[in-house]
């Protein structure tokens, strides 16, 4: 018993606590741990081959009750003809791309055969997998959450261990509700101070990734801490955890607190009654112990962070939106500048923006749309700018419409579309044309990510909205009341 009490007194990280709760078989030098999974989110792109493998083996889905599927990646976001403002319209769109249509039908068929609930086009709960998990109260503190999608780290915002997996692992979870895993190392990212007005969670993450690098957290799970983090609402926390993978991290997480509990409470899948009270008691233990040591740590002052913009071809290649393109430090920077058509020393505001994309699992939630709408309201899109506004889910769309946001966007000249991943991954027909410059609230600016030859600048919803109305990338704090940038460009 002595060893057990010693173990109890050993300070532990949030990661340690989450890990210990889910160990079915501990890891050893010879074998990885068998780790239990609480929630498995499924979508049409990374699941078909996994279901095929189950079928080949004659295997069942072990826990259909802990598995939920939706359609988001390859689905059209074209506005439905009879769309009515603020009201859900049950329309199954015609999917013109035959391969995408087959993928969608395959998921329908698989869900029916294996007894999995699918949030299809007739569901008011359909949306991007990382938007609906939290929205429905499926993502809860203390859980392990996986999905065949690298941005599964989003759900770590609730104090869960959430990470992306490949298709083979999707089949493992379907068949066993477990995964073979080695425990990640722990990484504390502490943010003191508070963000300035006009600076958002997205800017904080672009800043953070630019500081630690695109592989800065490989093999680590990041815990974001400090007053700048705890001041965020849940949607901003999701933006933070979402982009952990862009620093190479296995996962990102934030300890649950009253903000978290208030968000979860009352949602369709949240515990209720006496279950709620015992859940909260349990969740309150999910913090890193005060004197615990992390494998790595880094400290930043949030008050020093400016609105950010990427200038290159990965999310670490970022700078203040009002700054100048940096001098290349190595070949990869030179190649990135060449691809982007930028010259070191110039302002990005020298270039006309062709497309603005507001949406994605990073920034497609109600607060993101509200922040952008505040900038857009009473203004018009600049000449030759196309703006797509793609709500992250049906729920976000309806909430936004009930607040009149759709009218603000539409009267400015933007497109108000149906929910989906859309231009973030550009596999549904929504894409940026070759050579076009896009300011995007999504998470990746890789070469060709938004369409072959597309050039992507990652930004916050506020910076993207400022770009939409000026046709230029500016520090949105410099946007004067008359809609003209007050800085010399």
């Amino acid at each position, binding site marked *: 018993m002595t060893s057990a009490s010693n173990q109890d007194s050993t300070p532990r990280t949030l990661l340690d606590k989450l890990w210990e709760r889910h160990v079915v078989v501990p890891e050893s030098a010879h074998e990885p741990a068998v780790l239990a999974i609480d929630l498995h989110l499924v979508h049409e*792109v990374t699941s078909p081959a996994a279901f095929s493998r189950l079928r080949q083996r004659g295997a069942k889905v072990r826990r259909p009750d802990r598995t939920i599927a939706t359609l988001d990646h390859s689905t059209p976001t074209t506005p439905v003809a009879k769309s009515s403002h603020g009201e859900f319209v049950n329309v199954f769109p015609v999917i013109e791309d035959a391969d995408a249509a087959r993928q969608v039908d395959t998921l329908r068929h698989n869900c029916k055969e294996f007894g999995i609930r699918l949030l299809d086009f007739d569901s008011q709960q359909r949306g991007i997998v990382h938007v609906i998990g939290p929205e429905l109260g499926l993502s809860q503190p203390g859980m392990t959450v996986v999905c065949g999608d690298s941005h599964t780290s989003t759900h770590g915002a609730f104090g869960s261990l959430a990470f992306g*997996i490949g298709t083979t692992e999707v089949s493992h979870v379907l068949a066993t509700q477990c995964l073979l895993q080695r425990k990640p190392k722990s990484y504390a990212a502490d943010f003191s101070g508070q963000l300035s007005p006009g600076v958002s969670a997205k800017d904080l993450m672009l800043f953070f990734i630019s500081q630690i690098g695109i592989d800065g957290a490989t093999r680590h799970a990041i815990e974001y801490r400090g007053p700048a983090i705890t001041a965020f609402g849940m949607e901003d926390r999701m933006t933070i955890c979402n982009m952990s993978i862009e620093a190479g991290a296995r996962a990102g997480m934030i300890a649950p607190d009253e903000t978290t509990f208030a968000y979860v409470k009352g949602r369709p899948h949240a515990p209720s009654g006496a279950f709620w009270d015992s859940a909260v008691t349990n969740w309150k233990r999910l913090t890193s112990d005060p004197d615990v040591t992390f494998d790595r740590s880094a400290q930043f002052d949030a008050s020093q962070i400016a609105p950010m913009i990427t200038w290159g071809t990965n999310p670490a290649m970022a700078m203040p939106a009002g700054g100048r393109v940096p001098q290349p430090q190595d070949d990869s920077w030179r190649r990135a500048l060449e691809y982007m058509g930028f010259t070191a020393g110039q302002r990005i505001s020298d270039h006309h923006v062709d497309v603005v994309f507001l949406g994605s699992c990073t920034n497609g939630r109600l607060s993101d749309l509200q922040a952008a709408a505040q900038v857009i309201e009473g203004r018009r899109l600049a000449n030759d700018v196309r703006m797509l506004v793609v709500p992250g889910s049906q729920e976000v769309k309806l909430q936004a419409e009930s607040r009149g946001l759709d009218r603000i966007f539409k009267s400015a000249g933007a497109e108000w579309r149906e929910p989906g991943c859309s231009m973030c991954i550009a*596999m549904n027909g929504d894409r940026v044309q070759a050579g076009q410059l896009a300011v995007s609230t999504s998470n990746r600016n890789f070469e060709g990510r938004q369409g072959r030859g597309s050039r992507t600048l990652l930004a916050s919803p506020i910076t993207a909205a400022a770009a939409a109305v000026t046709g230029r990338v500016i520090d949105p704090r410099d946007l004067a009341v008359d809609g003209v940038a007050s800085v010399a460009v």
Partner: protein
Amino acid sequence: MNSQHAIIESRAIHLPQTDIDTDQIIPGRFLTTVSDSGFGEMAFADWRFSSTGQRREGTPFDALRDGDISILVAGHNFGCGSSREHAVWALRDLGIHVVISSRIADIFTSNALKNGLAPIVVSREFYQHLTEHPTDLITIDLQALQLNSAGRTERFSLDAFSQRMLVEGRDQLDHLLSYEPAISDYESRGGATPWTR
């Protein structure tokens, strides 16, 4: 699941770029499929083919025509980005059995190990040595965890489980299913989220 011979010997394709992401390995537009094979022509499609589908001359992939090449030597932080296993399938369908880099991204590594593709991480010095001898044969011994090329030998690490899975070509799902009693026991104890019941 492909089994992997313990000894692999081949020349390599060299892609010196750092941070090659999975969107480069297989662009998103090829992901509207329900299959897990037939991705060879889509591997590095935008690097190998023009926008009109013409094969580009003078790319590192020209070496594929000169015979069997099963090794890719790539710059630091290979395979970052998305979790798409299609990236591994595409390399496998191109005939690649080994990726060597000074760092390989986590999810890519995990996916590679489930498809008989060996992700081998070497020191920056040895990576440099390989790039200085781009046409030399590379010999990899997965049993001895040793890599040899142009007169130098490098030891690399691979955890015992991954090594066994690669060399024996075993399916990890079989291994996981062998723990069924432990999984049932864990579930019967209420799991980690008793409040969800």
